[in-house]
């Protein structure tokens, strides 16, 4: 495969010299004080764009037996990610996860492999991430590492981002709108860093775009009630 995945916003893609490498390793750090769902969601959406409609997406994380939250398929569908294309791998510990990730990347059948890790993850060192980068280049499978509750460390990633949720453009009656992500490009191998943007996910067109914040108070009252009724039906 190879090539680059443009995120859809010209400024951003120029900064990325065309986009995110489809056969690269990309790291998405959640801010240490946040819940981290935004970083996972952004990685999933990038994965969704790389996989398109044909390729499966493999999502590896700690076993559901843990006390953390679990992936919710209706929520994936609501983001525009077909839950049917997602294979969830839940394993006991990081060493198993790293073995399974490497195996999944090497196989080459998936468009993207997402590894979601909580905490410091000493095992995922420079050597381990180099190995993943090599495997990604060979098989053309993107490796998306989601790091929640972790501080950025040295790695062989092609890009490293900090991703947090950003305020959404409000819908009528001040309802939360489509998801917006606050992105900081912390590192880009062979390219500039320091980019800081906010991107909104447009599900219908399956693109990121710059959010447009309007004034929610301009929306007529009563819209909320209508929306509520329609959804309840």
């Amino acid at each position: 495969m190879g090539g680059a995945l443009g995120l859809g916003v010209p400024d951003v893609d120029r900064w990325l010299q065309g986009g995110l490498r489809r056969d690269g390793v990309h790291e998405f750090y959640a801010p240490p004080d946040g819940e981290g769902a935004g970083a996972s969601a952004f990685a999933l959406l990038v994965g969704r764009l790389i996989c398109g409609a044909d390729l499966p997406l493999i999502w590896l994380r700690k076993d559901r037996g843990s006390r953390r939250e679990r992936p919710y398929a209706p929520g994936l569908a609501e983001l525009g990610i077909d839950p049917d294309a997602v294979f969830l791998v839940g394993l006991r510990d990081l060493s198993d996860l790293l073995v399974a990730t490497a195996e999944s990347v090497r196989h080459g059948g998936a468009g993207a492999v997402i590894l979601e890790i909580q905490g410091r993850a000493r095992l995922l060192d420079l050597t381990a991430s180099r190995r993943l980068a090599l495997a990604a280049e060979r098989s053309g499978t993107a490796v998306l590492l989601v790091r929640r509750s972790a501080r950025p460390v040295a790695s062989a990633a092609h890009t490293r981002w900090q991703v947090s949720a950003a305020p959404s453009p409000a819908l009528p009656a001040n309802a939360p709108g489509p998801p917006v992500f606050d992105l900081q490009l912390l590192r880009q191998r062979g390219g500039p860093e320091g980019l800081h943007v906010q991107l909104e996910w447009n599900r219908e067109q399956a693109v990121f775009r710059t959010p447009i914040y309007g004034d929610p108070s301009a929306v007529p009252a009563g819209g909320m009630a209508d929306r509520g009724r329609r959804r309840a039906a």
Partner: protein
Amino acid sequence: MNKLSSERRYMAIHLPFLPAEWRIADGVAPPESPFALIEKQRGALRIMALSPAATALGLRPGLALADARALVPELPAYPHDPEADRAVLMRAVIACERYTPMVAPDGADALVLDLTGCFQIAGWTQETIADDARSRLARLGLRGRAAHATTPDAALALARFGTRNVEDLPVAALDLGDEAHLALCRAGLRTIGALKSRPRAPLAARFGRDLSARLAGLLGEEDRRITPHRPAGTIRAEYRFAEPLMTVSPLLDVIERLAQRLEGTLAERGAGGRRFDVALFRTDGHVARLTVTCGRPLRDPQAIRGLFAERLESLADPLDPGFGYDMARMVVPLVERLESQQPDLAEEGNARGQPDLAPLIDRLAVRFGPRSISRFQPRDEHLPEYADRAVPPESASAAWPRPEPGEPPLRPLFLYDPPRRVSVVAEVPDGPPRRFVWRGKPYRVVRHEGPERIAYPWWKHPEGRGPTRDYYRVEDETGQRFWLFRHGLYGRENEHPQWYLHGLFA
């Protein structure tokens, strides 16, 4: 009388001194000296089993220890341990699975092998099998007496009583209990041969109906099939090594060769295996077992080899060849339909951009357990936490409802299951949340939508009633989006409804 089962062949091995012999082999008891294994029964210590030397002195099980010591002063005694005896017997059973997969224990001191059809495959004769089995059991420290017959009952009786012919067996071989035994002897019927010539009906009338059944079993008129210790697969291949394998490395080649042998059988049946069992028989009687299961029927030897490679690598206890493996067997206990694939069809599938994840899934399942990989399937359930479920990765694809265009995501990406309790401040008791505290951290709600009312599905649980949930999508000042609900309608269902955090949005 025609013999219904003349073509079947059974071998029984009686291990009369098993309880004493394993103690000798373990070094617990001295060899070649008399000792007894005792148990307290109704206040007296009674002999349950004896060493060969003690038997030679004329002692018999059932004797009180005190009486035995009157005959043999200072007879050493050890506690009887039926459970340990059973474990030793099962080791003998497993060691004999090299001759046939159909091996069953019988009672506390015997085992029986169904050797039907085993001679052609392996080039054994019943004598060579008996010799080999005896010497292998001797390595476990057990002395066995083997006998062959066309029914398991006859083989067992011949082994137990040490006679060559069924007709020479004493009537005790019928195992009808002391009373019937005595009555038969009084009637002058001392051997099976004597009974054989008598009309059956009067015998049954006098000595019970069991007699007919037992007699038929001994005479080979009725075949009681044995229930093997391990269910036997009909699709199996074996490999005997001229030299025992002392290292693990050639095993994968052996496994691939076994798979190659089975490939034809599977192809003829239009089937593939969903499970493959490999048993590795060690010269000392130990058997190592490896099993792989796969998500789809498989018969490609290379793929099967790959799965076993994964299995070998993931073993918590690496295989220990010890004195070497001298036989391997592969059994396919679970098969499913698998049409021969035309290669160009498979390639077309790839060209359409649908690569086959199945080999990867199989490998991950073998290594990390079949439950570690799953897909999602929708469920038509009312409560959000039941709206999806994890299914095995090979499950059929499912169609998911499409979200309404223009709406933001109405369901969270992550769900807390069960929901987490949070403390919420709302302006009015039945209004939307303004602030909440989650794990000690305060969140200020700046946007919200709701309530979306989700009632307890009372129509499904007519007796059970749960509070209604009022769900709110909320966003805090940093942009994090949460799914909260109030549990119970204020004033109607609950005076102080609790709040829960049920999910995190993107």
